[in-house]
């Protein structure tokens, strides 16, 4: 896993000028590098982010290029890291914090919930905290326990945080740049298992992407909408391809940011298709899908031919490596949910009169 990238971050910068295959890891690395080069207040800190370049090599080369004061190995204490970042932000810096794995962000929850999310509010806007908290998240990489949690529900339930997660190489760069530039704290969730996913992308001329807060239709379709994000986007695209055989033309919406939530794009899609499935790895119960399904239903009720269904991880602690494939929502489960969208329904569009009621 790690050897595959040794040194690529640095080398990539020098040699790649045109659109060539790049990994999401490279794009993230480049985003931090460019942000640091442009803005001297950007500081990276975390465990092993220096000489090692992070356990996923996402900060590779940053200490070499910018020095230890700009990309700093911290003592091993997540609350301390985030708490220190709060103080740095108070003094005008723009810290980018790396949490080594999803579950290792938990010790920092008090700092995140009681200070990072609330400081702007507590001070009537006088003390904003432009902090980016990068969290590698999710499973599918054969990690042992505490290395594969999907913790986005916690962040979503915390007003004051932006919650962003890329699914493409271009978004990895564009959204991370936007997160670092944001004057609000951003929890930036990096889908571990997409770190080594590739796409044609130019580090010298990274393509512009939509801002934080906008969802993207990754695949247009007419039969039903798959609403998803992060590691489940490729799964949904694959499912959409497979669905053609069954005669379904599925639309795939990549949320990109869970907070702010793009009701407009999602609802426009669902109103068009009349059916929706929300797909994510996090456990279903109390997970992001509940919120998403509820919002869609509130807003599109009379356009729905069937209830919005959810395909999610089971309501269990993340399984051990040898069993994780049974837990993760895969193509078959997505198609199965699509099949349950009551295609036999005799439902037809209701008269205009009701539309007003969907607030």
């Amino acid at each position: 896993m790690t050897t595959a990238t040794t040194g690529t971050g640095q080398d990539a910068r020098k040699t790649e000028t045109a659109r060539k295959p790049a990994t999401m890891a490279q794009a993230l690395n480049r985003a931090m590098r460019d942000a640091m080069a442009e803005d001297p207040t950007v500081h990276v800190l975390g465990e092993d982010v220096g000489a090692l370049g992070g356990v996923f090599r996402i900060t590779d080369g940053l200490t070499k290029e910018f020095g230890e004061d700009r990309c700093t190995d911290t003592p091993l204490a997540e609350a301390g890291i985030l708490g220190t970042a709060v103080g740095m932000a108070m003094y005008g810096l723009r810290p980018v914090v790396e949490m080594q794995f999803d579950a290792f962000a938990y010790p920092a929850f008090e700092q995140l919930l009681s200070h990072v999310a609330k400081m702007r509010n507590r001070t009537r806007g006088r003390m904003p905290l432009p902090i980016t908290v990068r969290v590698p998240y999710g499973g599918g990489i054969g990690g042992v326990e505490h290395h594969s949690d999907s913790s986005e529900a916690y962040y979503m339930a915390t007003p004051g945080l932006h919650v962003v997660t890329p699914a493409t190489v271009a978004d990895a760069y564009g959204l991370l740049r936007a997160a670092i530039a944001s004057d609000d704290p951003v929890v930036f969730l990096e889908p571990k298992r997409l770190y080594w996913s590739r796409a044609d992308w130019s580090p010298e001329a990274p393509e512009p992407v939509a801002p934080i807060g906008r969802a993207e239709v990754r695949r247009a379709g007419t039969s039903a909408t798959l609403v998803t994000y992060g590691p489940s986007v490729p799964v949904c695209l694959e499912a959409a391809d497979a669905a053609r055989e069954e005669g379904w033309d599925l639309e795939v919406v990549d949320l990109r940011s869970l907070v702010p939530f793009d009701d407009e794009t999602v609802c426009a899609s669902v109103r068009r298709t009349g059916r929706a499935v929300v797909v994510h790895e996090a456990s279903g119960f109390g997970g992001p899908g509940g919120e998403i399904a509820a919002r869609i239903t509130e807003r599109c009720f009379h356009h729905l031919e069937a209830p919005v269904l959810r395909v999610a991880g089971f309501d269990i602690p993340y399984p051990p490596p040898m069993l994780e494939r049974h837990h993760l929502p895969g193509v078959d489960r997505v198609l199965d949910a699509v099949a349950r969208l009551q295609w036999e329904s005799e439902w037809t569009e209701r008269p205009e009169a009701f539309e007003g009621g969907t607030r």
Partner: protein
Amino acid sequence: MTVLEQPGAYRPAPPPAWRPRTDPAPLLPDREPYRLLGTGAELDPTLLRTLHGHLVRGRRYNRQATALTKQGRLAVYPSSTGQEACEVAAALVLEERDWLFPSYRDTLAAVARGMDPVEALGLLRGDWHTGYDPYEHRVAPLSTPLATHLPHAVGLAHAARLKGDDVVALAMVGDGGTSEGDFHEALNFAAVWRTPTVFLVQNNGFAISVPLAKQTAAPSLAHKAVGYGIPGRLVDGNDVAAVHQVLSEAVERARRGEGPTLVEAITYRLDAHTNADDATRYRDDAEVETWREHDPVELLEREMTARGLLDEATRERAHEEAEEMAARLRARMNEDPVLDPMDLFDHVYAEKTTQLREQAERLRAELAAEGAEENGEGDER
């Protein structure tokens, strides 16, 4: 040299070559609390007079704020009566460019630093969370979650140092707060990065009802410094001259780039934990009485009188000024704050999300309907 390449920082070596990073001996705290009053030490009369004015006003401020809770003008007040020496000294040792990180009990320190007392009490009145602009007097928001502000003080001091500013951050925490993980992590970061941070522990003997003996088994809280490789200092927290002296030394040390210091000030909370607390449940009046005999205001007045620095007229003037301050505070706190409920949505993000705009509109409509119903009574309570 980066801030992380500290002199003396150690790498492991096979045991024949092992040596401690530093000699621990100089890190060990004073063998007993450092004192100046009553010791015959040389003291600056001007400083004593300044401290006296602050102590007298501080005591009166505590009394007034407690009274305001009874009148329903404050939601709650955690009094620092008995601890005024620490509160005042913490504020006065700092330069304007320095930063103060108070805990929830330390509104007096903020006021002594020059903050408008009404703003300092905003949190406890309940009209907003932080009642002041932290950048105006460089006072971080009062921290209710205990010890969580200590890493902030470390981070701020670290940032200032990286920017080349000779700014010191002084953070205040209680004896109870030293048990929190954040205390440990903050001191360790500060020590490793040698940040210009001073940690002042006000050991007032209790965390609400929990006495020190159930909080720690350490020889003293100052002894915790050794485990971080920084100096610990122990001071009589009711001896304002001593607290001022020890904190000044720590601040100067920090400013010289020699890193953080942990100061334990031994003091006592004479009032209950807050106005809502019933202290008779967990401590004897006799104990409180012992401490009244070691009252910070009286200690100083006795000393100044003995030294001929406090005649009756000066004393009276100080107390009169305090009364005036209290009267002004009372009068201003008796005015209803004008609040705009729509503020609720304004400071969640730099820009309101669509959802917040919708919610704000809903509330605005509700308020309009209410207003219409109540014939313009509006939304102040």
